[in-house]
């Protein structure tokens, strides 16, 4: 399944992800700059903050419990489309999803 990451400077990177894989994991595995995922997806660190492209906001669903509180601690601006990418798992509806990356995670 395809995910396109768009960095803060506009650089696009397309990667392949497996069904069920988190977007954070796919980014780290494919060496995408801009997603750190320091805690490995334990909802501990807010270093996998991303902005889901408006067109995909419905498909990615709502924030998980506690996610918005963790996002309060994110380094970059929090927007209505902000998510922790470790909490979004790839599924058929997300084929081709577009993810924007914040300027900084730390």
């Amino acid at each position, binding site marked *: 399944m395809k995910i396109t990451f768009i960095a803060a400077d506009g650089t696009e990177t397309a990667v392949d992800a497996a069904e069920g894989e988190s977007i954070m*994991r796919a980014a*780290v*595995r*494919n*060496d995408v700059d801009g997603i750190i995922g*320091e*805690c*490995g*997806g*334990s*909802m*501990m660190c*807010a270093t996998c903050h991303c902005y889901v492209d408006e067109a995909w906001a419905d498909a990615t669903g709502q924030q998980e419990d*506690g996610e918005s*509180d*963790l996002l*309060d*601690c994110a380094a970059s601006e929090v927007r209505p489309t902000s998510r922790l990418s470790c909490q979004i798992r790839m599924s058929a509806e997300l084929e081709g999803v577009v993810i924007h990356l914040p300027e900084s995670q*730390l």
Partner: protein
Amino acid sequence: MQRIVIIGTGQGGQQAATSLRQEGFAGEILMIGDEPGLPYQRPPLSKAYMASGDADALLLKPAAFYERSSIILRDGTRAARIDRTAQEVETEDGARHGYDHLILATGARNFRPPLPNLDAPGVAELRTLADAESIRRRLAHTRHAVVVGGGFIGLEFAAMARAANVSVTVIEAAPRLMARAVSPQMSDLFLKLHWSMGTEILLGTMAAAVMTDADGNAAGITLADGREVAGDLVLIATGVRPNVELAAEAGLTCRNGIVVDGSLLTDDPAISALGDVAAFPGPLGRHVRLESVQAAVDHARHIARRLMRPAPQPYASVPWFWSDQGKHKLQIAGLATDADDCIVLPQPTGEPVILLFKEGCLAAVETINAPAIHMSARRLIATPSAVLAACDYDLRQAAKTAAPVAH
């Protein structure tokens, strides 16, 4: 500066290499580590990995990262000696690697208590991916696991084994669980949580020997009072010892770890140390050694910044820890040791939040399944208790008005 050598390919060593590139270091980076394979995350070994068995998910970065970043990785290679005069590291194969700066990220190894028959087949320990793979394979055929040590690793394993329907006995020498890491109140909460999972816990109980069967295989633990706890898997989880030997043999000061100053430099200005192996000036003004991803990663970032920027601040990151035990995520912000006051805050749902104070200031906050409160707490460590009392100990509210944490 042309060449930086990092000894240790764990998360701290890996982060040092990554951060050096992020800070713009363009010279050569060589990582040397005795473990085979690419650097990976250890925390999930006793947690998610046990359930999934997915080793690829543990990798910190893919192989392509090291190539792209021109980081040379000598895995499966033991560093044998540091020659500080020549500024060279000699590896076991006899090769010598010159450095302008050396970063020691040698980590820790499991402590092996002096128990008879500790080397018997069937005695397990858990630190590396290889350890975890072996335990995971065996767990499917295990009926009763005996765990020596009621710390994070022993209890994470116990919860995971219970979830796999293996019966478990935990033997802990101290009168409470996780005594080094959490408050007595939190120890007590977790005792009850593990009871509710069906785990047998023997507190204040010393292991005396590994029992063996007729074939010499581990068959349980004999206690100091002569009682026997039979089991087909024995896990030794009695803490770690820092890997200081290379540093000590090179003449660097070592006292419960490699002693570093507030900028994480050893006695030798060309050598830094980080993570589990580094004893650094802690928040209470004396040296501490922390066994955590947070210390490893934040130390690594600090060293990279110090090497690449002109006027660095002293290291001052707030420590934090976590442990997933069954469905319970224990999180600790700050250092819980030496607290002189404690407030237990009941929560409308779930487990209470425990605030620990030292000399009138917030020293640590312990939470279970409350990541938002934990994140707020990280910003509030060292806040005077009166400030928190004024907002009725609503940490999330207090954090919104607090100054940001220094990085």
